[in-house]
């Protein structure tokens, strides 16, 4: 039993890495039938798979198309698991609100970041594209989030990140804020008073973990 499970976990991770949606779903169901806890399927099958995807993407071994099909495979397995997972299982690592800021409709990078965060145990609420400050704040409050993640790909829209940061600070809200997107730099992030910046989805996970720690220490 132990062995079968272990073998299935590794097959599941491999199916995610290769973006094989049907196999991912079949293995998820098989593990559930064996009585494996949903949380372990997530932690020991899906997450290790996505971790490899993240590293290969960061190192330019795979590109966006491969990442997207891995994400799709992961998503279809999560759709089966989510109703079975307890609330704490889902938001175990914390809750992040992520969106592309007002005026900007680029979301390929943001979607990849959201998915990598999800596969690292965060609960991620994706508020989509063209998101205004009110939407970030309202959703963060409803969800009891700790982190706001903002994406912008345009020079015309990156300035809006500052609007959100300023509002959070002025209203003395506790959220940690991280930003990213092709034109964003560490300097820019510092300049607008954000708490963190990440170049890519793998770094975004590390940054989110760091900010979550800071959030806990601060409160």
């Amino acid at each position: 039993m132990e062995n079968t499970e272990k073998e299935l976990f590794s097959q599941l991770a491999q199916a995610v890495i290769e973006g094989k949606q049907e196999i991912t779903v079949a293995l998820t169901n098989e593990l559930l039938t064996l009585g494996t806890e949903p949380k372990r399927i997530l932690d020991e099958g899906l997450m290790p798979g996505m971790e490899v995807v993240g590293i290969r993407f960061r190192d330019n071994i795979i590109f966006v198309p491969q990442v997207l099909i891995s994400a799709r495979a992961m998503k279809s397995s999560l759709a089966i698991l989510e109703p079975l997972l307890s609330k704490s299982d889902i938001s175990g690592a914390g809750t992040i609100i992520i969106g592309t800021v007002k005026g900007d409709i680029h979301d390929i990078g943001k979607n990849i970041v959201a998915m990598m965060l999800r596969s690292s145990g965060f609960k991620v609420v994706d508020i989509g594209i063209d998101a205004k400050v009110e939407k970030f704040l309202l959703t963060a409050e409803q969800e009891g989030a700790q982190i706001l993640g903002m994406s912008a790909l345009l020079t015309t829209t990156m300035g809006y990140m500052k609007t959100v940061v300023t509002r959070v600070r002025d209203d003395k809200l506790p959220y940690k804020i991280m930003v990213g997107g092709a034109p964003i730099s560490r300097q820019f992030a510092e300049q607008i008073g954000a708490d963190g910046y990440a170049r890519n989805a793998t770094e975004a996970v590390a940054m989110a973990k760091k900010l979550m720690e800071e959030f806990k220490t601060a409160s």
Partner: protein
Amino acid sequence: MNGKDRIARHLNLGISDRTPVMCQLSIGHYFLHSGIDPVEIWFESGAFAEALVNMADRYSFDGVLINLPGRSDVYKNSVKEIQRSHDEIKVIWKNGHYTILPFDDNPHYYTPAGERIFPTFDDIDPEQLYYVEPWDVTEVKFPFFWGFDEHREKSDFFPDYHFDTIRKVKSLAGNRLSVHSEVFSPWSQFLELLNYENALMAIMDDPIKVKVILSQLTEGTIDLAKKQALEGVDAILISSAFAGAGLISRDQYNEFVLPYEKRIISEVRQTSDVPVYTHTCGSIGDRLDLMLETGTRGIDTLDPPPLGTVDLAEAKQFLSGKVFIKGNIDPVNTLLYGSREDIISDVTRRIQTGKPGGGYILSSACSVAPHTPPEHIMLLAELAEQHGKY
């Protein structure tokens, strides 16, 4: 020497009196700065032609890129109402759909529910594809038709008015400015048709079907490019924005971009002398050799870090004598946000690097952002006068 002759020399890898200057301006920049109403710019060939020429003159550019299709006045019959607010214009159509024109960005067409419509990969029957015009008034559709209801056979696919903007620009300034038209790479058309992510996944799911689709789109693109050549344009640009390393690998470029762009270029060459060149933004530093294999006459944008990966000196060394190059000024950190001093030093360096031996057009890498101050853009021609003399 006028702009038309100056650019012509460089398209042929030669030199001229000085380095030519020509940038692609974003549509938002025309909206903000041309003084012409956005509704007219977006929906009327004549107004867009005027905006193109006025702005090229204001910035002392040597050429213009016509980056919207010509329009028919018939759109007016479909308008129900036009609402204007401080930051956008909403054109409500009789069918209940609407177009939003932001005051500083490209417009989009929405359903009454506020959505944009895209077919799925499964919906697509490749046989029915010929050319997908993403900037049609009602954007992408499958099967494609023009405007609200203009269905056309492949044998006569491009309406005559599609070429009106080219004709108007030529009549306004064709004797003195270099006039460039645009066709979309089949790869770009495919991404636009499926709304990007679904198209990117499709190459993993069913690469064979994707290749059949791309072949079909290649036929329509060849047809369009040949017709543009007959209108007397000075060059044709293949717009291929999604072929950089930000989105696909070299291998994927090799499979899904190269063969189709190559075929377009070789077909056009068989019937005309009009040079065809390629615009690919973002990170292309790792695939300049593959871009050369398409047989392109020139490579446009060459984004420097952080947005791209091209060092102009390296690119110049590698591409010199093979193709002309255009671009490399950072549109964001230099042109938009840079100080006057930043711009002077950055642009001067570009001229010094790009100029030797000719085949270099000074330009922003990718398009000039909407809010870029006009006085920043005017510096380019001044600096080309000062430092670009041969």
